[in-house]
């Protein structure tokens, strides 16, 4: 009996936060279903949610790694645009889009490495420093692009287009890639040395250091991963819309962060949940689109986004405080 109890309590310790965010998601669905049943059974509503979700997943899941390592990054919303700019500019100049894709992702990783190194080596506050980088990079983009967008219709005829963002019998390919990304990240976070070291570092960096883990390297890699995720998100969106525009990504800044925390990853480091974050993304995406779909005006969107963040925080609080 007591063994059974300990199994349950360990299970809850590991999965409680993910279960919490799944619970919120189900609750939200039920509320929408009762509030606007006709809108809810129309498939095009869910289709538009599913188009939005992949981008948000590419941004949110790597942030779970970073937050679990005890850091935060705001600059990803600009990295998103820088990578998309590099991609679009190179495509426009006749470079093979597959190579542009690789270089775009490489740009994201490089920016992540720079931001991470800056923060880790000089021991800066990641919140403030990445806020600085957020504005700095956005400024660079606006200056370089002269605030003009770039249209790249030519990607449509290249083989990467149908493979990455095409339509497979009515099924958007980016959903498939986002799903692969989630599965990969789930194992990467829970069953791989990288994820395990991130959790140790975020939990107690002094202990991790004493046990021979290179704390700085782990943190810089987490920043790089955020850069890579943002680059993928930015490039996918640019391909889907055939357009780079210099303000792109800014709208995702708060949504992706909200998805991390609504998804049940605590802000203090050491813990994180990939599955929870997927449902956090689901909650945020349905809020964004669902409010309009049920016929309420867009003004309500921010109100409900705020409400759900607060309710989620209060709910996850029940799961317990940080143990030391």
């Amino acid at each position, binding site marked *: 009996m007591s063994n059974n109890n*300990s199994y349950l309590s360990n299970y809850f310790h590991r999965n409680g936060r993910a279960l919490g965010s799944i619970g919120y998601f189900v609750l939200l669905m039920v509320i929408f279903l009762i509030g606007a049943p006709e809108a809810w059974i129309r498939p095009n509503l869910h289709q538009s949610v599913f188009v939005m979700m992949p981008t948000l997943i590419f941004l949110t899941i790597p942030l779970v790694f970073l937050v679990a390592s005890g850091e935060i990054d705001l600059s990803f919303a600009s990295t998103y645009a820088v990578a998309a700019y590099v991609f679009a500019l190179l495509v426009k100049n006749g470079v093979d889009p597959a190579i542009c894709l690789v270089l775009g992702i490489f740009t994201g990783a490089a920016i992540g490495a720079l931001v991470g190194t800056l923060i880790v080596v000089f021991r800066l506050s990641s919140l403030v420093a990445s806020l600085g980088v957020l504005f700095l990079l956005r400024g660079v983009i606006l200056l370089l692009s002269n605030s003009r967008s770039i249209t790249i219709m030519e990607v449509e005829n290249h083989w990467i287009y149908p493979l990455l963002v095409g339509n497979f019998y009515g099924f958007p390919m980016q959903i498939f890639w986002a799903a692969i990304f989630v599965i990969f990240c789930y194992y990467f976070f829970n069953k791989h*040395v990288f994820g395990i070291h991130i*959790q*140790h570092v975020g939990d107690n960096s002094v202990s991790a250091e*004493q046990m021979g883990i290179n704390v700085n390297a782990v943190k810089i890699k987490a920043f790089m991963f955020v850069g890579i995720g943002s680059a993928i998100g930015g490039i996918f969106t640019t391909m889907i819309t055939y357009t780079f525009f210099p303000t792109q990504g800014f709208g995702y800044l708060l949504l992706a962060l909200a998805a991390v925390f609504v998804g049940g990853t605590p802000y203090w480091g050491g813990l994180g949940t990939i599955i929870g974050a997927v449902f956090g993304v689901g909650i945020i995406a349905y809020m964004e689109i669902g409010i309009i779909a049920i016929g309420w005006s867009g003004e309500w969107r921010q109100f409900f986004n705020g409400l759900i963040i607060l309710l989620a925080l209060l709910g996850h609080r029940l799961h317990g405080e940080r*143990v030391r």
Partner: protein
Amino acid sequence: MENIIELDNVTKRFGGITALNKASLKVTRGEVVGLIGDNGAGKSTLIKTLVGVYSPDEGDILIRGKKVNAWNALKARESGIETVFQDRALTPQQSIVKNIFMGKELRYPFGFIKEKEQIFEANRLIREIGFTSKLINAESPVGNLSGGERQGVAIARAIYNKAELIVLDEPTNNLSLNETQKVFDFVLNVKKSNRSVLFIGHNIYHVYDISDRFVILDRGEVVHKLNKNDISTPEELMKIMRDTIGAH
């Protein structure tokens, strides 16, 4: 006798303060060395330099007679030195099994972790170290454990890695009598298997009982090295310590 590790004239400074001044120390196979000294004598700096958390500003570190460069915590662990730190070096939100294997996870190729094997080994170690509560198993979070049990996890980590030298930094602090006895039994077992222990303690009686040799540290310098047969009682050891520190 083979030297497991040797510090040769090691100096460590923090800003303008010299925490260790030309300190030399060696540990040979199968012996228990007690390191004693007052608060601020440099015990902690010496230990952290020995196990690679700090790198020395001057002096050499020799592993089995060979000089090593760019000494760090990972190299120390790879050389067979495990440390039970004063603060236990645990991550309380993580499970016991993750803590036991922290930094030395059992891996498949490409860095994936052998989770089942780790859990099996951790459960075996927990029983070996004497966790009696049935509520505790390898997947319980460390944050739920008592101070003694946390020390048990830190020791289990050292046991699993079959270290040749185990450094115990104030291992009996905040432990009950029963738990202290467990630590002593552990030290004797290590010695019996021809491995070595460096035992750091405030409590002279504890250090006296368990050690073969004593090293007294004061203001960053090694001021005395004694064998157990040089002295007959812990009181004598305490007197030597008081005299040297006073005279120094």
